């Protein structure tokens, strides 16, 4: 008897463990997110963003043996009590140009003030969801075909979350 897995919905999560004294300056990233949102500009390339992106690409290649290619990046700010709309990063009428993965990174968040809800179908058991908390310096990466949303910010501070979308080869 044999088994073949035809498709999987994998969730990658953890913390960004940079070398000592080389932590990502999340304040700088938060400032960039603020600038992008205030002035409606493209997210600026920065050394801090590059460190985050390179870390993720290197470690996914090391641990799981596939390479990530950048598609888009942006940051979001969530005010107190604010949640995101349901989000979906693939464009079902333009799958060729859609990403494979969504990567979310906790830039500056009040502790345990929100989580990410990822919706998925488990064959006949459709309409399921998985909640995973997101905190400072933590990341979550999942297939871009999954709808997700960021739960209401239960703190009285602004929450900053960075998104990067990737293709994989």
């Amino acid at each position, binding site marked *: 008897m044999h088994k073949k897995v035809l498709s999987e919905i994998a969730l990658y999560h953890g913390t960004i463990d940079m*070398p000592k004294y080389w932590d990502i300056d999340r304040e700088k990233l938060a400032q960039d997110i603020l600038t992008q949102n205030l002035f409606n500009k493209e997210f600026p390339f920065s050394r801090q963003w*590059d460190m985050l992106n390179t870390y993720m690409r290197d470690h996914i290649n*090391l641990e799981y043996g596939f390479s990530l290619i950048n598609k888009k990046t942006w940051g979001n700010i969530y005010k107190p009590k604010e949640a995101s709309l349901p989000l979906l990063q693939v464009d079902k009428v333009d799958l060729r140009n859609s990403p494979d993965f969504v990567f979310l990174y906790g830039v500056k968040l009040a502790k345990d003030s929100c989580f990410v809800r990822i919706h998925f179908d488990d064959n006949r058991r459709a309409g399921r969801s998985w909640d995973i908390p997101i905190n400072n310096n933590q990341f979550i990466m999942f297939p871009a075909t999954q709808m997700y949303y960021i739960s209401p910010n239960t703190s009285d501070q602004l929450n900053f979350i960075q998104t990067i979308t990737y293709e994989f080869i």
Partner: protein
Amino acid sequence: MAHFAKLGANGKVIQVLTLDNKDMLNADGVEDEAVGQQYLERHNNWPAQMWIQTSYNTSGGKHSSGDNTKAFRGNYAGIGYTWDEDDQIFWPKKPYASWVKKIDEARWQSPIGDAPELTQEQKDQNTALTHRWGYNWNEEGQSWDLVDSKTS
């Protein structure tokens, strides 16, 4: 062209990059690993001490030219290898839990040594393609098992 391995926090190689030799020359015009490390830190946002030079022509503690005095750090680093600072060797992934380091040859070895030599008869049969004899490591039994992969 020089090669440098980028180390992760646990000493694992996460990337291997090439560097133009002119970018690692010191003030005296001599190639210096520390200069290369500084260059890579500046251009790759990763601390200098976590870039370790590796030799493309070294494998199993031997140099491809035959002159083993040129062998450098055991093996050419690859993604997933581990840097052993004490022995100055890049180790590939350990193939079996029980295997031990053979430092002089920069390779892993079973706890009972290498697989026995095939007999002349077995070699002849392999050459004639009637069999494909070889030894497989049996981790559970801690032994080398003779198998004919053509029939099994």
